[in-house]
C-alpha cells in the first residue's frame, strides 16, 4: 500500500462514525493499560491483595464496579485486565504471523513439494475447530497465560500462510523479481528484499482485524480455567469466578464481561470497516 492510500483509508475510517468509535475505544484502552497503576483506585488489590472486610459489596462511590469475593475492587481489576487482553491480542496475532508468514512465503515462492506439504498442513489445521485445538493444546501444556497464547497462535497461523502464499505467487511473476532471479540473486534475498515488503501489508491488516477474535477466544480459554491463573486480574477469569455469584452479586461477572465485549466490538468495528474498504468486491461502493 502506498502512503497516500494509507492516508485515504485512515480518512475514511475517521469519517465513518462506527469505525471512529472503534478507534477511540482502542486508543482509550491502550492508554488505560499503560497508565493502569495511576488510574486504578486500588492497584494493590488489582494485583491480588485480598481485602476481606469488604467482600462482595455492590457498586458504590467507593467501589464503582463493586467488589469481588475477596473484597477486591472490581474496577481496579478490570483496568489491570486491559493489560492482559491487549498483550494477548498482540502476542497471539504476532505468534500466528511469526509461524504463518515464513511458511507462506516459502510455499508461495518455492512451490512444488514444499508448497504441497505446507498447504496440506494448513488444510488439516483449518479443518479443526480452533477453540477445540486451543483447548487440547492448553490441556497438554498445562494452564497459564503463555500456554494459552501458544495454543491460540498455533491454531491461528494457517490463515496468514494462505494469505501470504497467494501474494507471493503473484509477486514472483513480477518483472523485477524475474530480473533479480536472472541475475543470480539468492532465493532468500529475493524473498526478503522483494516479496516480503510487497506482501506484508494485507497480512498486517488481516492481523489487526483478528485481534478482536484473539481476545475473545483467549477469554473463553480463561473462562474454562485454562488461561491466566489467579490472582492475576484477567477479564475471562473474573467472569468465570463471578459465575457462581451471578444471581446475588450481579456486578461481579457483569463488568469484566462488559469489558471483553466492548474491547472486541471496538476491534471488530475497525476490522469490519477495513474489510469493506479493502475488499475489491465491495470496493466499488466507495467509488
Amino acid at each position, binding site marked *: 500500500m502506498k502512503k497516500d492510500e494509507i492516508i485515504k483509508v485512515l480518512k475514511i475510517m475517521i469519517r465513518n462514525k*462506527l469505525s471512529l468509535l472503534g478507534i477511540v475505544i482502542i486508543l482509550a484502552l491502550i492508554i488505560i493499560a499503560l497508565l493502569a497503576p495511576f488510574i486504578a483506585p486500588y492497584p494493590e488489590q488489582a494485583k491480588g491483595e485480598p481485602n476481606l472486610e469488604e467482600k462482595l459489596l455492590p457498586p458504590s462511590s467507593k467501589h464503582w464496579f463493586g467488589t469481588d469475593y475477596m473484597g477486591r475492587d472490581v474496577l481496579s481489576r478490570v483496568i489491570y485486565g486491559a493489560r492482559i487482553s491487549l498483550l494477548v491480542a498482540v502476542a497471539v496475532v504476532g505468534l500466528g504471523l511469526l509461524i504463518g508468514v515464513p511458511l507462506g512465503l516459502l510455499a508461495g515462492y518455492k512451490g512444488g513439494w514444499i508448497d504441497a506439504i505446507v498447504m496440506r498442513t494448513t488444510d488439516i489445521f483449518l479443518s479443526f475447530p480452533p477453540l477445540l485445538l486451543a483447548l487440547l493444546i492448553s490441556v497438554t501444556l498445562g494452564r497459564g497465560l503463555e500456554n494459552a497464547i501458544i495454543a491460540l497462535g498455533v491454531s491461528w497461523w494457517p490463515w496468514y500462510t494462505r494469505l501470504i502464499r497467494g501474494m507471493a505467487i503473484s509477486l514472483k511473476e513480477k518483472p523485477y523479481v524475474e530480473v533479480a532471479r536472472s541475475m543470480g540473486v539468492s532465493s532468500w534475498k529475493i524473498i526478503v528484499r522483494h516479496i516480503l515488503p510487497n506482501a506484508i501489508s494485507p497480512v498486517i491488516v488481516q492481523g489487526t482485524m483478528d485481534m478482536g477474535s484473539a481476545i475473545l477466544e483467549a477469554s473463553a480459554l480463561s473462562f474454562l480455567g485454562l488461561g491466566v491463573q489467579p490472582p492475576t486480574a484477567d477479564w475471562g477469569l473474573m467472569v468465570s469466578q463471578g459465575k457462581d455469584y451471578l*444471581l446475588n452479586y450481579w456486578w461481579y461477572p457483569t463488568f469484566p464481561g462488559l469489558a471483553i465485549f466492548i474491547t472486541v466490538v471496538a476491534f471488530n468495528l475497525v476490522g469490519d470497516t477495513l474489510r469493506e474498504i479493502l475488499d475489491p468486491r465491495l470496493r466499488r*461502493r466507495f467509488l
Partner: protein
Amino acid sequence: MRLREYVIYRILLAFVVIFFVITIVFFISHVIPSNPAALWAGAHPTPEEIERAKEELHLNDPLIVQFYYYLGGLLHGDLGISIRTHHPVAQDIASAFTATMELIIVAEIFAIVIGIALGVYSAVRKDSWIDNLARLFAISGVSLPAFWFGMVLQLLFFKRLGWLPLSGRVDTIVMLNHPLHVITGFYILDSLITGNWVVFKNALWHIILPALTLAMYPVGLITRQVRSMMIEVLQENYIRTARAYGMPNRMIYLKYALKNAISPALIVVGLSLAYTLVGAFLVEIIFNWPGLGRYATYAILSMDYPAIIGVVIIAASAYVFINLAVDLIQMYIDPRIKV
C-alpha cells in the same frame, strides 16, 4: 485439479484429518500425568484393585499397543469406558450429542430468521441509521463472549423478570410427572410427536435462553453476509432492469434479489454451524445443558481420558464433515467456483 478429483481429495482429506485428530488426541491425553486406574477402581482402592484396573484398561501395555486396541474398538463404534461414569463413552456421547444438536438447531433457526431479515433490511436501507444499527448489532453478535452473554440473559429473564427458567434442559419434576417417550432424543420433537404438551412447553421454555445465546454469533455472521450479498445483487443489471420496468420494491427485494443473495448466504449458515458446535461448549456450562460441552468439561476436570478423546473425536468429525458438506454444496450451487 478437476472437479471430481477435488471432491475425492476433500473427502479423503476429511478422513486424514480425523485420523490425525484421533492420533494426536490419544497420545496427548496419555501424556498428561494422571492416575486413571485409581479413578477406575473406585473409592479408596487397594493396590490390588488398582493393579486389576490397570490390567482392564490395558495400561500396562506400551502406548502404541493401547492405541491399536483403541483404533480396533473405534471401528466397532466402541470409544471405551468412561472412567468417571463407568458407562460406555459412546453411549454417554450419544445422549449428549442429541442434546447439543437440539440446542444448535434451535439456535440456527433463530439465527437464520433474524439474520436474513436484518441483512435484507439493512442492505435495502444501506447507509441509513437503521443500517448502521444493524451493522452494530451484527458486529456485537460476533463480539459477544457467549459465556458472559448467557449470564446477562439469566440475570434479566430469570432473576429480574422471572419469565424463563435459569438452566437445564427440562425440569426433573415435570419429566417425572409426565414421562416422555423418547424417540429421536430431541425433547421438543419427541414431546410434539407424542402430544406431551407439558414437557413440550417446559422444554421449549428451557431452550430459549441458551439457544438465543448461542445464536448471537451466527446472527452476526448471517446478517453481515446477507447484507453484503444483497448489496452486491442490488447492483446487478437485472435488478436495474426490474426497476426500469417499474417493479415495486417489495417484489424486487423479496422475490428477485433475495433468491440470488440467499445461496451464498446459506454457506455462512453451514460455516456458523461448525462454530456453534464449539460455542455450545461454553453455553452448555452456563446453562447446565446436558450436552457434549458439559460432558467434555467434566471429563477434562476429572482427567477422564476415554471421554476426552471421545468427545474431541466426535466434535472434530462433526466439524470436519459439516465443513466438507458446506464446501461441496457451495460448489454444486455455484458452478463458477473454480478449484
